[in-house]
């Protein structure tokens, strides 16, 4: 970032040439904004230090206007572009030229700048002429140095020298001669963007990178009415803030709540993040208030109150249609879409005694200044907006919202605060690109001429007031209607009888302008409809357009584009023989983007010839090639224009094929890129750009135009390929598949549901069983005697070999896994384990005398391990797997005792275990033991070999694998026999079967299992997660021979595994969309990037093939934060990003896609809800 300039300071300084002008700031976009007074705008400052500053009130949204404007100034001033410091959108210095919208920066707001540059040049050259004593027209300027240009005259004066000692302020007269276009050296040539080297090397550029001294970090918490900004509940729903709920988080500075605005401020960013997640808020209940925006968008738009505005009524449409030979009445629907900035919005604000400074990525610095002044109830000149670059916004995103958020938090704490919105907040709260409904009726005469064209469009959107104004109650949350549905609403064709009606309406959900504002949808309708009319008339669609297109530049462009694409005239859909299941087609569309307040004016012209390939089985559509013709008049930076065209083609193709905001009930549920997938590299079409040579025409906006014909060109191409007209976007594979194979849907009928569980019977059975046990417990076994405490033995009691052996056994036995609380000290106990009978807390097994096992003799330890009796004689609950430990050899038990007693003692008393009645009665455990505690140890089976027997000893002894991997009976005892190691549930995780009932798609081999147990990952089975993660971490420290033995034993258990199944995703559904957007990068089965950590295959994943979706659901919701080994990598938790239904969709997709031979899981949404509510402790 360069020096921060200030207009007043420049006005006060000496030795400077300033070019100024009286300007009328445009009216604000918000109805609230009052007419703004004239102001003295500064456009150019030439300083005596050689600096030439140029000022424009617009901002660079990533389109490269900073470079193009610098080129314009450099051209008029005969400088190189690098000599111009182009300052954009800083309210302290740049003129108020309104919002950066409607592709108007080069076309409109560059004009005064160019005149100002010409004014400066005239003054400087005339001054040099006076000094040199030659006529001004005899002088030449090269890179800001004036000379006569004669070889014999070496007099030179730089601009800096010319202004030195002189202080001049000139108004733009408009009379300074502009350089003739044929003398241009800079404008019209490809010029490298000024900003890219810094961005490619990480130099501070973005508002996200801004740091100021003393800066704190803030996060906001948004209300539950996700994405809705009108209604009496807005700003009035917050009931309570529980500040104590974040008292455990260090670094918290403040919690700020004003109306429904809530924010937290902390010293460090991660502290603010955690606080925003943990802060408990109470909101008023909020019930469904939205119409159905998912399955009946057209109906919702029709029902939204509107006011018709006829913007064109030519001839007699009704009479013409009545007399028509054919009438085509069609409805077109555009979905809600996201701007989808890649960087969620961010801002830094400093509210101090001497004013308010906001570093912002806003699209409209001057309007934001007015909003902030209104919010703080202070004068506008006390607020400075410093515009820094942000992620591309393509319209109104959350940049203004977050700026106001930062202001409120900074005001509260009296220090600068940086606020970063989350991905979820940006997705949910950005003002959406509005849905739109177009209803068209066109007629044809018997001769094929157009007989009437009646067009109506409904656009529910407005300026989306800055959120903080609504949440704090500074602005009434009343949805206003904006007259913005009229962009490009009048078709470019000269039909005799034509009517265009705009149904102005207020937003339904928060919505505002997005690239191609209402013009993309309107053109989708116009250009789809004219294609239908052409075929109905039996005329080639390109020829039909040309017949009705009065604009010669448009006609030239259409012809040139058709020729470049090799357009083959046709009077009906072509029938190209399919290649296998692939149908191919080509479509055409044309539009000139007409924007700004009606009737508006035209930006660049654009025409598309799009090629598509449609898979008739899956319904997938690929745009394979786009030939795009573009006429932008003079192109200041042709490279920049070409890049804008590429970007518009790719972004609009993405919108047409993939993009639609999802809603559930009354909330936006597209919260990340799985819920809203966009086009990725493998899908990008070939793009052939034809730029019309018009360098002598005025420059026209190019930031949006190229996108406008996209939807119709693609839809027309799909019609060419399939014979089906798609009139509602996005044209997803599902929609195409459904249209091509109406019966295919029945193939997806869900598998038969599992029998409902007989819960009542189960409860009765339990009670009965327990009754029996109680009876036995009372009579069978008495309370056991305590064993006397001892003084802890010294660490030198045992040999190094014994201690190492003990360490290995403790690792094998995973003692620390259960005896360590989340984030707690190892072995100090306190881990909460959910059992069907209540919560069991693990005990402290460090040698602390008071709270641990420091006073335990070996005899006490041995009894606890083998019989489940504590030193004091109390029974332990069988969550402690003493049933497995009975078989441990005496020597191993001694070594384990030695290891534990030589660890550092930790004084920590874990919470008391409290089980529901009657399970809380510890003596009953004696009865339990009578039933389930087997005596003695398993005998070795010599014929299986030493390795197998060693494996059996480790698995069934200290390894206690069955504690998790065997199902338990109604009384919590491990089942035996056929159910031994047949899979169990632990802490909400499914521990998969290790015996022949394994659901693994590929049978485990000894090698696979050995690798898995030591690294936590097997290519053919997936990763260890949940409680298995720390198990592997422990196993990894054991001798390889022991791991081999375990693998040998486990893979030899009875039964054969099911046969292997290849991955075959067969359907594209909501779940697949989520998978593509959220999961695929890391789970691509080799079709994606190589990333740190493992990339587990879904097809090979045992959990996908299991009878239960629990493990998958758990990993998706809660992620893997503690991988078994550090090399595995991490998986994020999606619980805050996905709804239950989205997770259910994803699970359904994973099941059908990757385990197609297995029955569908049922009750998924409930399962997900249950697992969300019970996160467990692993």
């Amino acid at each position, binding site marked *: 970032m360069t020096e921060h300039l200030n207009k007043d300071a420049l006005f006060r300084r000496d030795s400077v040439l300033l070019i100024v002008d009286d300007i009328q700031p445009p009216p604000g976009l918000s109805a609230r904004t009052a007419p703004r007074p004239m102001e003295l705008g500064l456009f150019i400052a030439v300083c005596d230090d050689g600096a030439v500053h140029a000022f424009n009130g617009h901002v660079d949204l*990533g389109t490269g206007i900073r470079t193009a404007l610098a080129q314009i100034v450099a051209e008029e001033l005969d400088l190189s572009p690098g000599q111009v410091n182009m300052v954009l959108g800083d309210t302290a210095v740049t003129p108020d030229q309104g919002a950066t919208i409607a592709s108007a920066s080069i076309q409109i707001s560059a004009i005064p700048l160019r005149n100002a540059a010409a004014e400066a040049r005239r003054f400087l050259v005339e001054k040099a002429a006076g000094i040199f004593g030659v006529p001004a027209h005899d002088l030449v300027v090269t890179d800001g140095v004036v000379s006569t240009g004669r070889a014999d005259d070496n007099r030179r004066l730089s601009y800096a020298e010319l202004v030195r000692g002189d202080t001049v302020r000139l108004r733009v007269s408009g009379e300074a001669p502009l350089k003739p276009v044929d003398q241009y050296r800079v404008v019209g040539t490809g010029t490298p*963007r000024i900003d*890219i*080297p810094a*961005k*490619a*090397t*990480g*130099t*501070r550029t*973005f508002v*996200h*990178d801004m*740091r100021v001294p003393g800066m704190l970090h803030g996060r906001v918490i948004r209300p539950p009415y996700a994405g809705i900004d009108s209604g009496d509940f807005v700003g009035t729903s917050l009931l309570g803030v529980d500040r104590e709920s974040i*008292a*455990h988080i*260090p670094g918290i500075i403040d919690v700020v709540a004003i109306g429904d605005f809530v924010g937290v401020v902390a010293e460090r*960013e*991660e*502290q603010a993040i*955690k606080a925003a997640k*943990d802060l408990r808020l109470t909101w008023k209940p909020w019930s469904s208030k939205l119409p159905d925006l998912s399955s009946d968008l057209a109906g919702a738009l029709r029902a939204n109150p509107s006011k018709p505005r006829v913007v064109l009524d030519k001839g007699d449409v009704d009479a013409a249609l009545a007399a028509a030979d054919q009438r085509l009445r069609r409805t077109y629907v555009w979905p809600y879409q996201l701007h989808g900035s*890649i*960087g*969620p919005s961010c801002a830094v604000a400093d509210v101090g005694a001497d004013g308010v400074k906001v570093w912002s990525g806003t699209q409209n610095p001057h309007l934001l200044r007015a909003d902030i002044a209104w919010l703080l109830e202070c004068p506008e000149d006390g607020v400075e907006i410093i515009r820094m*670059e942000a*992620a*591309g916004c393509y319209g109104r995103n959350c940049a203004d919202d977050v700026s106001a958020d930062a202001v409120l938090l900074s005001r509260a704490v009296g220090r600068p605060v940086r606020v970063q919105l*989350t*991905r979820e907040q940006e997705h949910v709260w950005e003002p959406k690109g509005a849905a739109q409904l177009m209803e068209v009726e066109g007629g044809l005469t018997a001769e094929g001429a157009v007989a009437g064209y009646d067009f109506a469009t409904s656009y529910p959107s407005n300026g989306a007031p800055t959120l903080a104004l609504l949440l704090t109650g500074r602005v009434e949350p009343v949805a206003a209607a904006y007259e913005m549905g009229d962009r490009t609403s009048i078709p470019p064709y000269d039909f005799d009888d034509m009517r265009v009606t705009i149904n102005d309406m207020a937003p339904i959900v928060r919505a505002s302008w997005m690239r191609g504002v209402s013009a993309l949808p309107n053109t989708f309708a116009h250009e789809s409809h004219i294609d239908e009319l052409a075929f109905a008339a039996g005329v080639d669609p390109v020829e039909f357009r040309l017949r009705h297109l009065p604009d010669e530049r448009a006609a030239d462009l259409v012809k040139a584009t058709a020729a470049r694409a090799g357009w083959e005239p046709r009077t009906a859909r072509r029938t190209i023989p399919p290649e296998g299941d692939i149908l191919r087609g080509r479509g055409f569309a044309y539009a000139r983007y007409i924007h700004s307040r009606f009737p508006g004016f035209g930006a660049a012209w654009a025409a598309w010839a799009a090629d598509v390939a449609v898979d008739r089985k899956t319904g997938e559509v690929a745009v394979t090639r786009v030939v795009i013709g573009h006429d932008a008049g003079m192109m200041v930076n042709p490279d920049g224009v070409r*890049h804008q065209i*590429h*970007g518009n*083609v*790719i*972004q609009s193709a*993405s919108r047409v094929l993939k993009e639609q905001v999802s809603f559930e009930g009354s909330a936006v549920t597209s919260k*990340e*890129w799985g819920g809203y997938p*966009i*086009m*990725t*590299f*493998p899908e990008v079409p070939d793009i052939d750009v034809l730029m019309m040579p018009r360098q002598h025409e005025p420059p026209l906006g190019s930031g949006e135009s190229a996108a406008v014909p996209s939807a119709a060109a693609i839809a027309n191409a799909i019609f060419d390929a399939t014979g089906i007209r798609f009139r509602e976007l996005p044209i997803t594979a599902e929609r195409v598949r459904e249209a091509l194979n109406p019966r295919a849907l029945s193939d997806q009928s869900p598998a038969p549901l599992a029998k409902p569980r007989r819960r009542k019977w189960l409860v009765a059975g339990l009670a009965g069983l327990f009754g029996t046990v109680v009876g036995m417990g009372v009579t069978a076994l008495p309370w056991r005697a305590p064993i006397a405490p001892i003084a802890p033995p010294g660490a030198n009691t045992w040999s190094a070999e014994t201690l190492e052996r003990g360490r290995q056994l403790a690792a094998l036995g995973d003692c620390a896994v259960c005896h360590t609380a989340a*984030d707690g000290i190892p072995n100090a106990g306190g881990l909460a384990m959910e059992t069907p009978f209540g919560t069991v807390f693990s005990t402290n097994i460090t040698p602390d005398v008071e709270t641990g096992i420091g006073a335990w003799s070996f005899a006490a330890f041995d009894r606890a391990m083998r019989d489940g009796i504590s030193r004091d004689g109390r029974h332990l609950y069988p969550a402690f797997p003493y049933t497995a430990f009975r078989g441990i050899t005496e020597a191993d038990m001694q070594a384990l005792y030695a290891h534990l007693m030589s660890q550092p003692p930790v004084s920590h008393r874990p919470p008391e275990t409290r089980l529901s009645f009657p399970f809380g009665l510890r003596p009953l455990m004696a009865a339990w033991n009578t039933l389930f505690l087997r005596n003695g140890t398993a005998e070795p089976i010599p014929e299986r070999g030493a390795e197998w027997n060693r494996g059996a000893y480790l698995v069934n002894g200290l390894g206690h694998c069955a504690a998790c991997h065997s199902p338990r009976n109604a009384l919590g005892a491990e089942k035996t026999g056929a159910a031994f190691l047949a899979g169990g549930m632990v802490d909400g995780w499914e521990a998969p079967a290790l015996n022949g009932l394994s659901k693994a798609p590929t049978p485990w081999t000894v090698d696979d299992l050995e690798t898995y147990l030591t690294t936590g990952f097997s290519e053919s089975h997936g990763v260890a997660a949940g409680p298995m993660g720390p198990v592997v971490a422990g196993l990894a420290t054991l001798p390889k021979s022991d791991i081999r033995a375990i693998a040998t034993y486990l893979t030899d258990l009875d039964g054969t595994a099911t046969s292997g199944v290849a991955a075959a995703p067969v359907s594209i559904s909501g779940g697949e969309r989520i998978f593509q957007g*959220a999961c*695929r*990068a890391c789970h691509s089965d080799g*079709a*994606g*990037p*190589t*990333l*740190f950590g493992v990339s587990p295959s879904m097809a090979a994943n045992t959990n996908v093939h299991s009878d239960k979706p629990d493990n998958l659901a758990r990993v998706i919701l809660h992620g893997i*934060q503690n991988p078994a080994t550090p090399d595995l*990598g*991490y998986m*994020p938790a*999606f619980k805050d*990003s996905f709804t239950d239904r989205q997770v259910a969709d994803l699970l359904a997709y994973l099941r059908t896609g990757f385990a197609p031979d297995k029955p569908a899981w049922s009750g998924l949404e409930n399962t997900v809800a249950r697992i969300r509510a019970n996160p467990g402790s692993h």
Partner: protein
Amino acid sequence: MPTRPVERTVSLNVNGASASVTAMADTPLLHILRNDLGLNGPKYGCGLGECGSCTVLIDGVAARSCVIPFPAVAGRVVTTLEGLGTANDPHPVQRAFIAEQAAQCGYCLNGMIMTAKALLDRNPRPTDDEIRRELSGNLCRCGTHVEILRAVRRAASGSAP
């Protein structure tokens, strides 16, 4: 009330320099790089590993720094965009991106360059399909894909594609 979060002090090796950082143990590496080490290259985009804006290299492999807790890189070598080259002396991959003007807003650029760097170190002559596949997990909303692909090809071949 939940217990106070555990803090960790970890020595990091980033761009050839070592730095000791103390923070809550689950703090993503991204925030440490940006806030404690003042590195602007890696960007916050989604926090879910979906978009690639935060990509850094860990032991030379592309990694999503937004989902990796910082203690996980103890003992490993981390490289960020700043560790490749500077504006005055860019790394060949950065130079290729600048030459192809492969940025519109440029927010995703870090991820594109870092992912391309990791790919080219592993496979100096990737096919077009391999480049697209490698970048398939990096999102760009401006639609700069054409220029980005050209930049990676240029970096691979050492000259304009």
